[in-house]
């Protein structure tokens, strides 16, 4: 069904296209590096030094102990303000994320065996860091009480001791960078292929290609493989950066990683080609590529937003995006190192997507030829 010579001819033609256009080449080699460097440093999930203002209406030993505990923790960076009114204005101008109000007679109540009440106002517009803040406050609350009681007992840190498996320091980089390969690949392959066929239509070279005896399968393979090669090179670059610069461990088996990468690349290249065959206008193809390819591969893959947090219906939808399965595999292989058997479902799904993408491509391409 596939004539090797004709496929190679298309392959060569496409390679020349790439080499002749240094822009594409540089882009596909530089972009992954920029993205990894940027992502690796920019995304930090551990909330630190949250700008916080406080109003101390008590001015007592106790309130100072509390504020000291708060300020010496790495989570809060505290600044005094004159009144609650002013504090709100700080929050409105995004200069503070939280305000702590210590009411008058705070110490009096606390020592007098009544409840010492603190009021905390948290900026809820960013709810992820808002939640974390509340968690940290709980810890500080307990610590203050300890500092206050000045007991000789060693500080009890609660009955729970946590061990973080696979990522002991909870490094955000270990979490984002491996999954980033998926996003880089998805974007790169869609960008590269989305225009190859619509460009041929617009330039009129498609008619020429059609008049030759090449078969759809040969065109599809010939157009896919050069870009797959380019993609593999950039995954390799990302892998090297992740291992050396960021020191992320790779615990799994390399062959699983590369097989999954190849399947994923082919799927996305196929998707790009599909957009390209279906939509002959390059401008529209670009919009579709951005919206169908890029956004879901970033947002529905579990790369940033954990899939388990989505409503059940949408969890089902994410199963339709190959990026989700690939991210699962990559993250697992880097940090956890499961066997191929344990990863059977994601690997199988990727395989199905790959076959589907290539099949759909050749089919629509054939339909295109006949029309």
């Amino acid at each position, binding site marked *: 069904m596939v004539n090797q010579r004709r496929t190679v001819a298309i392959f060569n033609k496409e390679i020349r296209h790439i080499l002749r256009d240094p822009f594409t080449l540089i882009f596909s080699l530089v972009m992954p590096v920029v993205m990894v460097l940027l992502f690796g440093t920019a995304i930090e999930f551990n909330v630190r030094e949250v700008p916080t203002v406080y109003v101390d209406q008590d001015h007592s030993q106790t309130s100072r102990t509390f504020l000291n505990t708060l300020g010496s923790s790495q989570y809060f960076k505290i600044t005094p303000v004159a009144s609650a009114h002013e504090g709100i204005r700080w929050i409105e101008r*995004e200069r503070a994320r939280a305000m702590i109000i210590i009411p008058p007679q705070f110490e009096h109540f*606390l020592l007098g065996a009544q409840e*010492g009440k603190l009021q905390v106002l948290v900026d809820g517009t960013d709810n992820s860091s808002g939640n974390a803040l509340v968690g940290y406050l709980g810890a500080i609350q307990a610590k203050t009480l300890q500092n206050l*009681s000045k007991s000789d007992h060693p500080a009890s840190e609660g009955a729970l001791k*946590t061990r973080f498996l696979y990522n002991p320091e909870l490094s955000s980089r270990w979490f984002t960078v491996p999954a980033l390969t998926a996003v880089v690949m998805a974007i790169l392959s869609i960008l590269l292929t989305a225009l190859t066929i619509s460009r041929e239509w617009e330039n009129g070279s498609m008619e020429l290609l059609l008049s030759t005896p090449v078969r759809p399968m040969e065109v599809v393979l010939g157009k896919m493989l050069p870009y797959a090669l380019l993609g593999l090179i950039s995954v390799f670059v990302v892998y090297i950066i992740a291992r050396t610069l960021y020191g992320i461990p790779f615990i799994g088996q390399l062959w699983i990683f590369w097989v999954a990468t190849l399947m994923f690349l082919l799927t996305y290249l196929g998707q790009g080609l599909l957009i390209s065959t279906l939509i002959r206008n390059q*401008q529209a193809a670009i919009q579709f590529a951005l919206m169908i390819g890029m956004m879901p591969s970033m947002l529905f893959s579990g790369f940033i937003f954990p899939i388990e*947090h989505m409503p059940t219906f949408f969890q089902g939808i994410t199963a339709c995006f190959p990026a989700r399965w690939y991210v699962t595999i990559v993250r697992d292989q880097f940090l956890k190192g499961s066997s191929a058997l*344990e990863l059977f479902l994601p690997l199988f799904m990727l395989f199905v997507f790959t076959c589907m993408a290539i099949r759909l491509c050749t089919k629509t391409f054939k339909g295109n030829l006949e029309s």
Partner: protein
Amino acid sequence: MILKGFIRKEIIQTLRDPHLGMAVIIMPVLQLLLFGYALTNEVKNIRLDVYAEPRDVLVQNIYDHALASRWFAPVKKHKANPIDAIQSGEADAVLVAPPGGLTRAAGRNEEKIQLLVNASDVLRAQAADIYLKSIAQSLEPKGEKTPHAPLSVSVRMLYNPSMTSSTFTLPGIMSMLLTFLVMVLTCTSIAKEKERGTFEMIISAPIRRTDIILGKTIPFALVGVWNVFIALMASRFFFSLPLRGSLVAFGFVSLCYVYTALMAGVLMSTFVKNQQQSMMCNFMILFIAMMLSGCFFSVDNMPLPLRLISYVNPLAHYTFLVRNILLKGGDFMYLIQYSSALLGVGIVLAFFAFRRFRISL
């Protein structure tokens, strides 16, 4: 008169193609809905398992309390040992009691419950740790009598009391989609003329440079404004996103942003030769701008050099402004400060766009 004709040509060209028309008019709303519903950073369904003797009251208590909250769910299959449970992906977190039961071990003050967390997902690991610790703390038997009465903290979440995720993500999604349309369309439409060679025809026609730029940008400005309007309506209707500030301020800020994004598109188009290059350039810029804009990740947590970039990033300005106006009611000083920054970037971009445009002619 000439300008009018030029604009008409552009609009017809955009809407004539059914795919492009769809991409411009319907897709943004669809995406807004999709992402608005799906993307949440509310933690839930952390699968928790427990390894303790049934009579170990404290561990069982922590476990029961955890399951009662909406964050945790029980595992489907109990594995023989705790590490296996996590390795196989059956559980995200496991409570392991010290041998002999915690109540006794705690009395000897030597053992602790161990919490094993799968930290390959940092967000969930953090959440599991924080929540379980606070549950454990509240259940801990009070050993000696504490000299103080409890210290209570009453927390009030301002602006978003129910902590709805969409309230945070929607303004980000709105500004991102707007950029997709306005900047990318402008840039590619000029690139398209270049690729096809019709750009020379336009240049040789007796039209001023300003008219060319206006003619190329006004149609997409209209597309942008239309989408801002639709996006605002959709978020109010489907997600009941509040609009606490004034509509006028929102409109003004959006116009400023549309203008800046258009100018960015024009400037970028002077660097590219064809549509593919335009797409790649756009993509690159968009991606970096998005990352450093606080659309999804809070800028506060970034290291200083990257935070500095966000101070000149128009997408960041717009996202901040939209969030401030919609959720906080728009503090006047803040609006002035950030919209002038936004406009400033726009003017600088426009200056270079006009200059480069002349050279590329």
